[in-house]
């Protein structure tokens, strides 16, 4: 488990030059906040889902990244950047990828593997307003901050103004 946290933190940290933020993140981890990720085991035991109810049959749109059904979106919460001029893991023009994120684990329907997905917000514009999705596989309350998708995850971005949400594969579990 610690490995995953470390890997995730590193993966995200590699792409940000905001050292002050990293310092703050370190403080957070030291503060005991970054225990989370526990429910990952439980998430992994399930297939990806579109509505909060897990599906046993393949969702018809799980290969379409402009729908809530897309497999990587099993725990996404917000407006899909892929409907806003961005991609499933790319910000629309002019929006800034947040260096921080909440995380989930989604099973790829084709290879059967469980991927760790970093749900990174695009920040610096007001909400895009298209394709609102609220998937909740593995989603936790505020006290498990790293797994709370309702927060504005723009920590470390130029502003905390939320634009849309992406799903970035960080690795395989």
């Amino acid at each position, binding site marked *: 488990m610690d490995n995953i946290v470390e890997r995730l933190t590193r993966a995200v940290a590699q792409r940000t030059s905001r050292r002050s933020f990293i310092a703050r993140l370190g403080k957070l981890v030291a*503060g005991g906040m970054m225990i989370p990720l526990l429910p990952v085991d439980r998430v992994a035991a399930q297939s990806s889902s579109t509505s909060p109810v897990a599906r046993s049959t393949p969702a018809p749109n799980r290969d379409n990244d402009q729908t809530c059904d897309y497999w990587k979106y099993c725990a996404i919460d917000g407006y899909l950047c892929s409907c806003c001029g961005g991609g499933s893991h790319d910000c629309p023009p002019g929006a800034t990828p947040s260096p921080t994120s909440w995380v989930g684990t989604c099973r790829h329907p084709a290879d059967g593997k469980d991927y760790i997905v970093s749900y990174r917000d695009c920040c610096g514009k007001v909400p895009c307003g298209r394709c609102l999705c609220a998937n909740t596989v593995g989603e936790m309350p*505020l006290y498990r901050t790293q797994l709370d998708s309702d*927060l504005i995850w723009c920590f470390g971005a130029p502003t905390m*103004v939320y634009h849309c949400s992406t799903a970035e594969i960080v690795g395989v579990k």
Partner: protein
Amino acid sequence: MVKRKALFALAIWVMAASGARAQLPPDQMTSYKLGAPQPHWAFILDSVFLAPTVSKVDIVDLDAGKLLGQIDGGYLSNFEFSPDRREMYMIDTFYSRAWHGTRSDAVSIFDAGTLAYKGEISIPPKRLLIVPKNNTTGITPDGRFLMVANLTPATSVSVVDLKSRKFVGEIETPGCVQVLIAGKRKFASMCADGSLLTVQLDDSGKPLSRKQSKPFFDPGKDPVFDQPAIVGNTIYFDSYHGQIYEMDLSGDVAQTKSEWALTSDEDRKANWRPGGWLSIAASEKGDLLYVLMHQGGEWTHKQPGKEVWVFDTSAKKRIGRFPLKTDGYSIRVSRGPNPILESLPLMQSQIETYTAPEGKYLGVYKDIGTAFLVSGP
């Protein structure tokens, strides 16, 4: 039929004309006053999802189905009412250039009788930004201190002295978030390991004591929701799987008072469980709990509730249940006589009312934007 109506209308105009031979006097423009808040008034916090840098509170008389006034806020603001009902507060975040620029956080003060803006108290630009939730801000029962949960993502609590109109200081709460007001000068934060941190303040708003409890639930197995029902020193947490954890905060450190299930074996077989945004509400006296219930599997904790179940907190037993006209996402029970249950469906811009605890449907008020929380006097 139509003709008869038209004739009737005409008759009214003729009558009015005969009674008003003199011309109408000039109007004198004023601003209305709000007056003393009534129990069935709802203060509905609309985050304006498409432009959340401007929040709004719609003040609605639910009996009359009438908008009484509005106050505005900043980015994903919280709303608080002073315990004496003389002032309202918006806990705000502003950017100097609407969507960018310099961030400033502040507590904006409004006169409750006139809705006039009275000024602001500056706070550190660290407040927790989220789709609005209860217990990310809170006021002590004596109205003296306002607490604001911070997340940067390091966690702390800003303390504001409402009497001296000053930011007093910041209390670090490592590993624990939120402000659950649980006594005269006391708040609790929820910690990642399933424990509660109890912080006692002195008369200057500085921490007197800070004591973390043992974990009272297992977040890896059955997480509790983070918007519990609070009655005085008692906090009722509902969990994803339908347990109630009754916590006693009368002492320095939180103690488990009871743990019981919302659902019977039969209910669980039928997959009944709590869910929604704000899934639990307590009656004023604390004798009853209202919980939004739906049928669903694992990780359906945010599915809106088809029914409201009513529980007796002493007997720890369900005493009633009623269906909602529209599935509910957040509920509240009004204070005072003739309590009503107020239910906000998910993204449907409406608030429905029911008698409490009977659950007789009373009506609906529409046009409240993207509201997730409702509060009242």
